[in-house]
């Protein structure tokens, strides 16, 4: 086997994404063709409303694709049943969890549902997976706490543990850094990067932290009003694609600092 980078896990061709509304199709983006590999850390960039969530939802089968093909492990996703799919692709959502009495351990154990039997009892393997995923995010000490007692930063890590326990090769994470302070933002980025390599996961996140994405991502999916680019941060920088995120001439992308500057 060659380097892990060569193992294609997700292959998308001529994909159209959007919504079907009263038998009328509203296409957000079309003709998307790209690939993702094992152990790849991917950051999806683009401004609000450009279709980032639509793309992630389409890949995770929450909304149907309008046209084109999505292959995961060489299987078209429409031909994968929801049970099997839940063992292939795990998600972390931005929505708040409903209130409950769940402890951290119990919540992470819920990630094992695709693997447990019909009354949800945990086998030794399930218990090992839960404990392992607690260790992977350094949250073992939180295990007996109630979920609602956690801080935002702790909750974030526990949610990551939950999806790790689900044991899926692909993890999709919508705006992981949305309501975190800068300290936890960096920590989350580094943790996700580390997990993609150590646990060999394909991790796809949408984010607005452009400079960290450029620094840490293996690949960037860049969505602008008119185009979509799927390439390494270096290539995108060379082609000056990041400038396309802003249509104003007042804001320019500074390749040195990976930041946007306001020119006066």
């Amino acid at each position, binding site marked *: 086997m060659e380097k892990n980078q060569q193992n294609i896990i997700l292959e998308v061709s001529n994909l159209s994404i959007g919504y079907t509304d009263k038998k009328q199709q509203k296409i957000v983006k079309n003709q998307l063709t790209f690939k993702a590999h094992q152990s790849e850390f991917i950051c999806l960039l683009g401004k609000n409303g450009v279709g980032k969530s639509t793309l992630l939802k389409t890949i*995770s089968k*929450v909304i149907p694709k309008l046209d084109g093909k999505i292959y995961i492990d060489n299987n078209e996703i429409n031909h994968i049943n*929801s*049970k*099997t*799919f*839940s*063992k292939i*692709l*795990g*998600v972390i*959502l931005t*929505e708040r*969890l*409903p*209130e*409950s*009495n*769940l402890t951290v351990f*119990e*919540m992470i*154990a*819920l*990630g094992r*549902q*695709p693997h*447990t039997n*019909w*009354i*949800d*009892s*945990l086998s030794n393997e399930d218990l090992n997976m839960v404990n392992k995923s607690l260790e992977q995010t350094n949250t073992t000490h939180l295990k007996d706490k109630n979920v*609602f007692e956690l801080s935002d930063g702790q909750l974030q890590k526990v949610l990551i543990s939950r999806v790790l326990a*689900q044991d899926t090769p692909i993890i999709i994470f919508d705006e992981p850094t949305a309501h975190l302070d800068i300290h936890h933002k960096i920590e989350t980025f580094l943790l996700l990067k580390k997990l993609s390599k150590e646990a060999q996961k394909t991790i796809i996140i949408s984010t607005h932290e452009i400079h960290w994405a450029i620094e840490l991502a293996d690949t960037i999916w860049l969505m602008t009003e008119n185009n979509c680019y799927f390439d390494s941060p270096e290539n995108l920088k060379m082609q000056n694609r990041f400038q396309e995120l802003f249509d104003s001439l007042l804001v320019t992308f500074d390749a040195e600092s990976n930041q946007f500057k306001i020119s006066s």
Partner: protein
Amino acid sequence: MNPVNTYRLSFILLISLFFIVLAINISFGSVAIPLKDIVNILLNKSISNENWQIIITEFRIPKAITAIFAGSALAVSGLLMQTLFRNPLADPYILGISSGASLGIAILILLVSLGGFSTILLSNWSFIIAAAIGAFSIMLLVVIMASKIKNTMSILIIGLMFGSFASAIISIMAYFSSASQLQQFIAWSFGNLGNHTSQELWIYFGFYIIGIVPLLFLIKPLNSLLLGENYAQSLGVNIKNVRFSILVITSLLTGLVTAFSGPIAFVGLAVPHLTKLIFNTSNHLILIPAVLINGAILMLISDTIAQLPNIEYTLPINAITSLFGAPIVIWLIVRKRKLNY
């Protein structure tokens, strides 16, 4: 989730309590019967006083069985509603099922009094059938609506609307009713656990089992719903099917209880909370059996209180459940200072 072993002791205590409460329930009533004779009757030995035997076997035991069915079915329906709607105020009647049953009864009373129908129509069975038709019509409407709606919260609102609609019709009918008709209707709405023949109880039991058994297969999806519908979906749960099953089971159980025993308030709302406070878990593998037992216990206690010993009057069961249940729930909440669903 949690190993069942942790809860073994709690379950042993709970089941013991259930049998104690059941024994007390059968032992007390408007006619005082010595404990020794009750034991003899239960052991199928003949005793000197035939009336006592009839009171126990034909009256108190059927009533206790009805209390167990009603309490457990309402309590577990409340749990299902609270988990599905992620709302601590949800109860089995939130989808308007009791209003539907009440409407059925109101129409029955009206039809009988309009003449042309003999008063034989006001038998036990016609009450059960009228309430069942009313409850299941509302259930059918809600389930049909639910299949066309994606948002679970909208179903809740639609259920409430159906309930209000049915109540409004009842109000109008009540406005034009005679005093005796009103009295009949109000007597029904007090709730009544007694007066069921063994034949009726078998039918009660049959439908009860049809409603309870499928719960086994809902444990896993109910647990996943604790994370919200979207996470549940990402864990491979078919939300639409699960929602449909929950609605049908709740309607069946609640409609059944309402048809046989009238609209009994409070149990469905309070018992899931009581159980969660006692067991401190959200795992439905533990909660469902615990809620079933707790519901039965609360109902048996309420019925024992309603059936004040040595007094001829029986208090309305519907009032007792709230009168004595509410302070218990308040006390538990204040003591634990939290309430989750």
